[in-house]
């Protein structure tokens, strides 16, 4: 009986924010948030916050000095709408609970607060920019959320799955830990397998002077090989002179963007354009 009750209690247990009583959420264990905050010190947190938003950039200033707290952005947010209009899911509320508080306390926040911020900006916002379409001033709320994501990223407090993808991009410049060998091997395997359907089917690697360069998402050569196969068939039937790059970077996704890892974001885009320049292609075709 006691065990049963305990189980019931555990289910009912909620996370209630210390700062904002209205912020009540289910308990969701996540290594990337629960364990990483143990590494944080108040000095580290303050230094990171000041490094990112200390010298207020024009975009932060514009939002802070213009927002009149009208709540008209709320209706734009799919999180707000799908959680029965809970005010803590409104875009402006997310700014209030994260960056406004950081600025108000001049970066002097504790690890628990950073964890709460990470939960809000990573798991309760899709950075889709819809709130900016609804804001009468067109404030760049997503940019602000991105800055908070960057603070959390630099502090290492990120949901574990997102951290893994971000690290994959840092190391391999694709999101699935595929080395250059694996990539070429996967492409050749797909070409070979598709021979049963179309004998002429080719997936040209490093075809210089091609018209189109195809850049798949990381998951395609790893778990969705049939996507590349179909692309190859379409290209064959359409008679397009195409290619895939034989060198990194070939993954057109950027998980680094979601954590605002500016350095890796830059490496990815530069890599894509360097491949395009090297192969003198006219058009880049990206999977969306």
């Amino acid at each position, binding site marked *: 009986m006691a065990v049963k009750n305990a189980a019931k209690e555990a289910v009912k247990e909620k996370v209630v924010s210390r700062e904002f009583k209205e912020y009540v959420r289910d308990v969701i264990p996540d290594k990337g948030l629960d364990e990483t905050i143990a590494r944080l010190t108040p000095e580290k947190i303050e230094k990171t916050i000041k490094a990112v938003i200390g010298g207020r950039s024009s975009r932060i200033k514009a939002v802070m000095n213009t927002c*009149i*707290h009208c*709540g008209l952005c709320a209706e734009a947010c799919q999180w707000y709408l799908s959680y029965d209009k809970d005010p803590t899911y409104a875009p402006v509320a997310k700014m209030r609970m994260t960056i406004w508080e950081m600025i108000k306390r001049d970066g002097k926040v504790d690890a628990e607060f950073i964890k709460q911020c990470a939960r809000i900006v990573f798991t309760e916002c899709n950075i889709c920019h819809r709130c900016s*379409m*609804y804001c009468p001033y*067109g404030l760049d709320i997503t940019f602000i959320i991105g800055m908070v994501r960057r603070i959390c990223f630099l502090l290492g407090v990120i949901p574990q799955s997102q951290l893994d993808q971000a690290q994959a991009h840092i190391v391999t410049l694709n999101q699935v830990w595929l080395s250059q060998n694996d990539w070429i091997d996967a492409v050749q395997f797909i070409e070979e397998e598709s021979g049963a359907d179309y004998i002429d089917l080719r997936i040209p690697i490093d075809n210089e002077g091609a018209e189109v360069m195809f850049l798949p998402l990381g998951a395609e050569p790893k778990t969705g090989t049939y996507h590349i196969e179909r692309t190859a068939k379409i290209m064959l039937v359409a008679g397009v002179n195409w290619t895939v790059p034989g060198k990194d970077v070939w993954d057109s996704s950027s998980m680094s963007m979601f954590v605002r890892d500016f350095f890796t974001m830059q490496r990815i885009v530069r890599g894509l354009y360097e491949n395009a320049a090297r192969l003198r292609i006219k058009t880049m075709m990206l999977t969306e």
Partner: protein
Amino acid sequence: MEFLASTALYNILRGPLVWLAFLVFIGGSSYKLYTLIDLAKKDKVIFPFISLKATLKSLFHWVIPFGSRNWRLRPVMTSVTFLFHICLVFTPIFLLSHNILWHESWGISWWSLPENIADIMTLIVIFTCIFFFLRRILIPEVKFVTFSSDYILLAISFLPFLTGFFAYHQWVLPHKAMVNLHILFGEVMLIAIPFTRLGHMFYFFLTRSWMGSNFAMWHTRDW
């Protein structure tokens, strides 16, 4: 009360403080705008993406009532906010009594609103302010992001109109005291604009420009 109704106070409010208020309002706003634009230049990713055409399109859709999707989704809020802003800006500029003051001081004058219309416009500001206040305390998503500063900003916009209305009708306080209060609150408002979020009257154009240009780049609309 005697001091409030005194000519001495009137002379200060009507003399040096008017100069101060207008200088702070114009100088402060120009300085604030200049520093923000200057800062945006340092943020290298802003100006290359600004497009005049997209800016104008975005502004056009948001400054006309029901011109954007969010305005259409909230007809009550839209009507109230447009009435509020139109009356707030145009009543003081075209009020007959203000016009007379300009004429007395500098010998200049322009169009004036008929007095009864100006009276109605003042009432509109007063009642829309009450609407905004009720919105702040009643609607959950607004309440959650309401701070004391929001009430202060609301009061700063509300009081000049309330005292102006009372002064015109010579209610509540003796006329001279009410006029002095009215001038004082008006000056407070002008001085507050550059240093508070009331500055949205200028920043509006900059932030819309940035977002309108961005959305144009993504081949979509921000209205």
